[in-house]
Structures are given as C-alpha cells and as structure tokens.
C-alpha cells in the first residue's frame, strides 16, 4: 500500500475533464490496483467517476491518494501527478 498527500494545482479545481482522465487512467491502466481518494471526511473509490465528481476537489484542496495491489509504484506516480498538474481549459 502506498499513500501520497497532494494539493490540487489546477486553478479551476479538479473538474470534469481531469476527473474523467484520472478515473479512466485508474480503471484502464491499473486494473489490479485499488485506488482510494480521501478529502476531509470523504473517502471514495478513485475508479468511480460519480464519486470523483461528488468529491468536488477544488483549487488548493489537499487530497490523500492511496493505492493498493498491482503496480503500486506506477499508480501512485501517474495518478498522483494528475492532481498536481494544471489542465488546459
């Protein structure tokens, strides 16, 4: 199990597109890895697009990413970097 604490870098928040790309990457590239995202008192499955949207992670929010099983090193790097990237509008 690996955990990484991240501050959302995208000025418009972790909106539909980055969220979609995150969920797609988690689902397709890391099928054997359980992905959990925690923000405040919310803990969600990082492979659920609906939960990801409902998390409404905003600019400067801190989130905690946990990956377990499968390619943990790859998942923590690739998925964590999604939060730390500015996504073009």
């Amino acid at each position: 199990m690996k955990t990484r604490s991240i501050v959302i870098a995208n000025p418009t928040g972790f909106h539909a597109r980055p969220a979609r790309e995150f969920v797609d990457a988690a689902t397709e590239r890391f099928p054997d890895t359980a992905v959990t995202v925690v923000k405040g008192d919310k803990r969600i499955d990082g492979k659920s697009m609906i939960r990801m949207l409902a998390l409404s992670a905003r600019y400067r929010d801190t989130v905690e990413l946990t990956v377990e099983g499968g390619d943990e090193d790859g998942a923590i790097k690739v998925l964590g970097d999604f939060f730390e990237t500015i996504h073009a509008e």
Partner: protein
Amino acid sequence: MSATYRGIAVSPGIAIAAARVVPPDGSPAAPARGSLAFDGAAELAGFRAALEKAKLELAELRDRTAAELGALKAEIFAAHLSILKDPELASEVERGILEDHLSAAEAARAATDVFALLLAESGDPTFAARADDLRDLGRRLVRLLDGGADPLVLERRSVVVARELSPSDTARLDRALTAGFVVAGGSAVSHSSILARSLGIPAVAGAPDAVDAIRDGALVVVDGSSGLVTVDPDPAELELWRGKAAAWRARAELLEAFAGRPTRTGDGTKLALAANIAGTADLSDALARGAEGVGLFRTEFLYMGRADLPSEDEQYAVYRHVLERMGKRRVIVRTLDSGGDKEVPCLGMPREENPFLGVRAIRLCLERVDVFRVQLRALLRASAHGSLGIMFPMIATVEELRAAKALLAEERAALAASGAPLADTVETGVMIEIPAAALRAEVLARECDFFSIGSNDLTQYTMAADRMNPALARLSRPCHPAVLALIAMTADAAGRRGIPVGVCGEMAADPVCAAALAGLGVTELSMGSASIPLVREALSRVDLPTAARLARAALEAETEPEARRILEGAFQ
C-alpha cells in the same frame, strides 16, 4: 393571437420557425413491485444490453463531436462514457432490479436520480452542474430500454421546445434543421446553453411559461439576444422580426470574420487588441476571439478566498501555463493589486477608513516585501516560457517604481546565480491610474518599458467619484475632457520616449472611446475577450488622422457630452 414570454438569453441570434415540442420523457410506468409478471433475470439482461448500447452510442457521439467541433466539445461525451462505466452506477441499477423489483427502466432512472442528487448537493456549482449529466444518462438508458423512437429527429427547420435539453440531445439534433431552442430549465452556463452558443443556435432558457404555451407546429420567434420568445406573431410583428433577424445575421457574419484578423484602422495603421483575464479559465475565449496578447492578467484570484498565501511554485505553475498558452503573444501580468474593493484576508491587513486611498497594490507590496518577492520570483522563473511584461499597479511616484524595480533586479540576480533559466529581458511597465502618475508621465517614461492606462481608476481618482456609487454615475465618464487630458499627457510622454502605451479599462471596449484612444496615440487596447471582434470591426472604419484630429478637439470641449459628440464623428 400572439403572445410574448421572457426567459434568459443564453445564445444570441434570432430564429423564426415552426415549433417542435419534445414531450417530457415518458412518465414512469406503474411500479412492477410484487407483479406476477416481473422477471428479474430478463430485466437484468435488458439493462446490461442497454448499457452496452449506450456506451457504443456515446463513443460514436464523442468521436463525431470531436471531428465536427473539436476535442474540447467532445469532452462532455467522454465524461458521460466514464460515468456510464462507473461500477457504482451498474450495481445500483442491479440492486434496484433485484431488491426493489423495479423494471430495468425504472431502476436506471432511480439510480441516475440518486447520483444526480448526490452531485447537486456537493455544494460547488461546477460539480452540481454535472447532475444534469446523470439525468441525461438516465433518459438515454430509459429510451434504449423502451426501444422508443428518437423525438429529436426533425423533418423540417424547427425551433426545438423542451422542458430540458441535455447535451446529448443538442448534439444529436441535425444542425441544419435546428433553428433555435426554447428550454424551461437551465441557465447561461448549463451545457446545452454553452453548446448552443458554440453551434451558433439562438436559445432562450428559463422560460417554463413559453414551453407550456407552445403547441407543436406553432410559429415561434426566439430572440436569444434579449431572451424573448414570441408565439404566433401577427403579420406586422413577423415582418419586424424578419428584419431584425436579417440584420443580426449580417452583423454576426461580419464580426466572426473580424475575430481572426489583425487589427487595422481604416487607413491601414496596425493596432493590438488584447484580452483582460482574471484566471486561466479566460484563456480559451481570449484565443477564440483573436486576442493579440493579454494586456492585463489580474493575479488577485491567486490570493483571494484562502487562509494562506500562494507559494512561489504554485504561482509559477499558473504564470507558466498562461505564458505557454499565449505562445509568442505578449502577456502583461499585473502584480498583486489588493485593497480597494479587493480584500485579501490572508495578508492580515488592518481595516482602513478609505480603502481606495489606502495601503493597496504597490503600496502594500512595498510594505510586505516578503509577499512581493515571492510573486516576482515566480514571474521571473515563468518568463522563460513566453513573452512576459510585469506591470506595477497604483504607482504615484517615481520612487515607488524604482523600489519595485530594485526588488525585481535583486530577485533576478539571485535566480540567475542559482542557474534558473530566465528570459533575456523582462519588460517592466507602470499602470497609469493615479492623476499624479499621468501628470509626471514624462519622468516615469524614462525608467520603464511600457505604460498601461487603467482608465477605470484614473477616471475615479480624477473625478473623485466612487465608481461603485450609482448616484455618481454622471461623473464616472472616461470621455470627460479632464480624463482625456491626462490620457493625452501620458500618451504624449510615452511617444516622446518611444515606449508603447496601452489602455486596459472598460473604456477600451467602447468603440467611440477606442477610436479616441487610438487618435491620442494609444497602441494597445485590452478588454474582456467578448468585445474584441466588435472593437476590431469598429476600428476598421476609423481613419486614424481624423480620429487624432477629433481627439485633440475633444480635449478643448467644455463638457463630457460635448467631447463625446465630437469623438462620435470618427464613425461618420
């Protein structure tokens, strides 16, 4: 008899056509709970088949939209596809069928409603808007399960009238046959409104009375510029609307052509029209409207609404992003302009009696050097990624300019010593918005690379009239000869030193003022992106020598209306 209804104007233009009323989605059938005919396994199989079919439809819709309108517009369907693949959605529908004994259609509707509610309650408008996507998917599944015909297949040019139009509804419509939209729900920022604007289809949202009143086949006029919907217009009204529609189309075609052109006056002089932006979200629109640069990047958004100060890395990432998106085009970043009406709680500054005349902008930055240095370092590091100009706001004296430049030079030296890549030159400019700066522009021009006139504050400080106070609106007039005189002094001083001078207030977006400013020697006008094609078209009809003569004449006017009348002559 004709009737007119008012809604929200969400996509401009005028449409006149017969109504195609889209019936509200089929009302839920009687619950199958306890029904003897209920066959859970069949419902489950039906749902799974519909789910796969919906995925195929969405992938096709995504690819078709990407090909026709670009990847950005196709994103919505990519998001729908990801929602559809969400394991929680499938398991909620399956639970509805197996435990609640709902039909597949009912279970799909119930599950999407539950999740739509979850998003609507997330408390953030950006994410709450996604609730519509869930309901949209619910309808798609229900339609596939019912095997129903598509109500959005049009046989003739029509105004589409509906309770609600989902993004996939609007995308499925034949563009050539869709004259306009009238929608009961929604707002200017709902998906269908945004898509309507990008498709150039006139649309009115928030018009439930109109939607209730319109019968299928009735003649409807949709004015997406004013939000008016007229049903069954009489012959005289119809004639009037046809004239308006033709004039609007001609104007829209003209302006569209101007978005992609360089800015030239009627006599062929080149000017630059730039965009004012207040965050990265404004960039796409700026580029689409043909901005030739960013004339004012307000950086306050980085500091507002938070408890701590933005770090150097965080600011660097934002500035770099903007510079990279604008490429070779110049980006003028205004350093922190807090105070006045822009409170920045994380700075912990004491309350002031007169915030507009208080420790704001550069005054604050020179007092809180720790905060200022962080921003300067972030800007310098970003300078390697584009064409950057740094502008200092609220400069009243040359000492302030020298102090700001000294800090910049220190940070530059420190960064260079550490080996950080920096642009060879980073231009520094003064925002001219205090009368003292305009009066002493000659001195300031010797020590900076450009001026940008902040006409809103310059007017406010010249007339000593709070621009937020509606009772003083008669004084908040940038065409007053007193304000024009200060602008002329600034432009003249810049001209003598050979440095460029821009204007980045509301004034720049007013065609009459824009012509006057060009006549006074201003070379860059920066404004909200939406105004760029409009001002560009207006300037193309201006003869610069005439505008110059009129602007000088306006300086001699006794009153603001007189000055304005003279300046309007540039368009005769």
